[in-house]
């Protein structure tokens, strides 16, 4: 199978899984609303009838933080703690739903009921969690070896406050180029669990590495292509979100719709990677 066909078939499967993806989106939305609504109420209480919010129309003016005073500290603490808890919950949630998605991409193609999707998610959750933790550990250690350690040495030698120089630039590029390998192994391992029903984590990882070795260029190329497209997409949406400053009610609502649409697209792109890897391995 060619790289193009792999990507195309993966995209078709991802789009066909729109119900599952919309379910994931709704779940993440409910999750963030659980923190977002109280924070908004807190902000409304702080600003009350003050018109100082006008100063926040084109970005957050830190000068206003001084006027908010102590409640600003409480606001920041709530937002930070909320973000941390949401990240943890989100990690478990995405790991959970990955089980359902991989099952869908490995089973005989056809309808998958929501109950089947959730059952597959639950069934695969623990091995997926172990794989996710192991792979994140591997990526963390590798990042330290490739970027952290040379950075520390560079700073010690040059006396600079940040690592820089041609060697570091090369290492950054190498790190980016190595990333698809680990993502492919993680995805191929999870595909193996979904396909075989086995919960043996290390055997799954072995299968992931084996799949990589057997079809290296197709596997690597598939993940690299999806990653690059994803990176461009993420950069574009963050740029959009940072410069958008709607200040009227209807515009804010449209902004909400736009950002949530982008979240859905991002979830589709993640599912595309899963599906493409499954295609590459088959």
């Amino acid at each position, binding site marked *: 199978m060619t790289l193009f066909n792999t990507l195309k078939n993966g995209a078709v499967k991802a789009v066909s899984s729109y119900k599952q993806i919309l379910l994931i989106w709704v779940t993440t939305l409910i999750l963030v609303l659980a923190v977002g609504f109280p924070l908004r109420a807190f902000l409304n209480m702080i600003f009350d009838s003050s018109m100082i919010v006008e100063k926040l129309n084109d970005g957050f*003016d830190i000068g206003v933080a001084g006027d908010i005073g102590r409640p600003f500290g409480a606001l920041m603490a709530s937002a930070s703690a909320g973000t941390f808890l949401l990240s943890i919950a*989100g990690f478990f949630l995405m790991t959970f739903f990955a089980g359902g998605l991989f099952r869908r991409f490995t089973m005989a193609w056809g309808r998958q009921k929501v109950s089947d999707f959730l059952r597959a998610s639950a069934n695969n959750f623990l091995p997926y969690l172990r794989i996710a933790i192991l792979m994140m550990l591997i990526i963390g250690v590798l990042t330290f070896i490739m970027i952290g350690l040379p950075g520390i040495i560079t700073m010690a030698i040059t006396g600079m406050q940040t690592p*820089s120089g041609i060697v570091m630039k090369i290492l950054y590029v190498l790190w980016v180029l190595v990333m698809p390998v680990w993502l492919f192994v993680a995805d191929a391992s999870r595909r193996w669990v979904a396909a075989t029903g086995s919960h043996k984590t290390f055997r799954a990882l072995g299968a992931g590495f084996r799949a990589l070795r057997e079809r290296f260029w197709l596997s690597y190329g598939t993940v690299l292509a999806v990653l690059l497209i994803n990176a461009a997409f993420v950069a574009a949406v963050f740029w959009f979100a940072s410069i958008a400053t709607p200040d009227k009610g209807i515009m804010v609502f449209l902004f909400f719709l736009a950002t949530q649409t982008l979240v859905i697209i991002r979830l589709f792109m993640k599912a595309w990677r899963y599906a493409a890897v499954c295609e590459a391995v088959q």
Partner: protein
Amino acid sequence: MCKVSKGLKIWLIFKDLFINRTVMRKIFSVFMCLLPLVAAGQAILDKPLSARLTGYDIDVTLDPEKHIVSGMMTAWWVNNSSMPVGEAMMHMYLNAFSSNKSTFASRGNWSASGKDGWGWVKVSSMSDRKGNDLTGLYGYVSPDDGNEHDKTVLRIALPEPVAPGDTLVLKLDFISKLPSPIRRTGYDEDFHFVAQWFPKFGVYETAGMRQREADGWNCHQFHPNSEFYSNHSVYNVSVTLPSEFVTGSGGMLIEEIDLGDGLKKVVWRAEDIVDFAWTAWPGYEVLDRKWNHVDITLLTSKTGLSKADNHFEAVIYALEYLNERVGPYPWPHLTFVDPPFNGSGAGGMEYTTLFTTMGAGAIPSFMKMAEMVTIHEFGHSYFMGMLASNEFEEPWVDEGINSYWEQRIVDHYYGDGYGLLRLPFLKMSDADQGRISYVTSPNRTIATNDLPSWMYPHGTYSMMSYNKAAVWLHTLEGIIGTETMDNVFREYYRRWAFKHPSGQDFIAVVNDVVKNEHGNRFGEDMNWFFNQVLYGQGECDYRVSGITSNRIRSYSGVVNGDSVTYTRSDRSSDTLYLSRVSLERLGEVILPVEVLIGFDTGEEVLENWDGTGAYKDYEYTGVGQVVWAKIDPYDKIDIDINRMNNSFTLDPSGATTRRMMNKFMFLVQMMISIFTL
């Protein structure tokens, strides 16, 4: 390279030939009588800018292995008082680093890095111009806190009083050991920043000067928070050191002589500056730029080269701005240093024609922190350098005024509202950075703003002397107008450049200029302002407490000058409303404020409230209802500690908070999808 006058070259040749030869000492002593006249000769400036009551001729050697600077110095001081003076006082700054019991070390949490880290300065011999040995006639005093362990002020009992108009000439052999870690001055490996390194006269103040009642020396100990008060002086400084060292100083390079054996002698001269510092490090990269008549030199490390343009740009911005709005920068030279990482303890300091900034390497381009430091430290060339106030006793005149100008410059050139930080979703002005420090400080009311630097309680020194002072100077600008404020500083410069102004002298300038430009619009003088913000401890807080609008059922009275009788109409367009805007002054500080009031008809009314009462109600009768009100709508009263309550609307939209929450949720959702496998 500068042009050196013939007179100066002759003097330097003479000095090299004779100054260190014992047989010539008597000739030299006679010559020293004429030293002030010689020193007054011009090498850099067309004419003396100051009274030049003190001068220093220093010839030293740097031992970079032991981090010791040693040699001889001839220092002179002219008694410009009407009375004979029987003693002299000198700063011995480096002794602040000689033990952990010095006032500086004990209060500033400085301790030496090992036994080689201690710093000190010793006078090994001292004589007057007649050759009288003064050994035994001097000892240490602690005028500020009586700390017997502090040896930063030397009192010399003179064998003969110095007559009015006469010159005291002291010839000293001294040794200065630089401290480590660097705090303003010191060394780290082969990096040397040599500041506050030689015995230096205090300022002899005559009665009336800075509101002083009687003549006397003003010579304070070395404190953690302040260090400057000196006469404008002439410096001739020669330093012998290994040839591989790259050097820079607050003086103009006169010549660099290769002495052979891997040594060189660097000769500098400086005129009308309040302190002389220099630096030596083999790793310096030297860059030059020219702005009008000023040769600007940057000493930086290799890693700092990439940000050199940013620093030069910042210095030139500051030069332009202060030249136009305060007064001319007179010297043809300016050197500044971006120290290497291991020398960062020397960063952020000022020595008039030499200053140090901070490394910008790790700072992203959307933050102008390093540029802010560059502009701030250059600003001291004016505020304390030319306008040589007493930083020990009145730090607000130095740091407060300088912070005010730094904030104006940063926000003017890098963006009003986002001078310090500019991102699409986040911004901060430099003025706000200072204001936040003041308005968020829980102990902003525990002290007045006129204390000596070492008297600020509970760590309030920086918040008060830098930030509160800058905040009320912005407020003063808001009240009297930017043009008048600029004229205040032009006049301040005209009257006080190269002299020693006090805070009272600055206030007198404000009073004169404001009276001249605005008459009695703000009262007889502006003392009411300074009495509250500088000499008072109160805070300023205005509040819109509420808005009400009631439909009038019947009305008899005057509307827009016409007498009317009104009975409620059935037509809504004819309905009259009585609207009331309630304002309150919650703080003790009384300042005039503008109040902008908006109606549902789109009409806006600007009122002026003198703020004298604790509250004020504005009432309006008409077809429009008041829907919002803003106190200080143009943010002129920076010293108001809470702008949240300065405005009130009956129709808070909530759109902004909804948008903020949308962005928060979007960000978290994207993070979850990106950082999970």
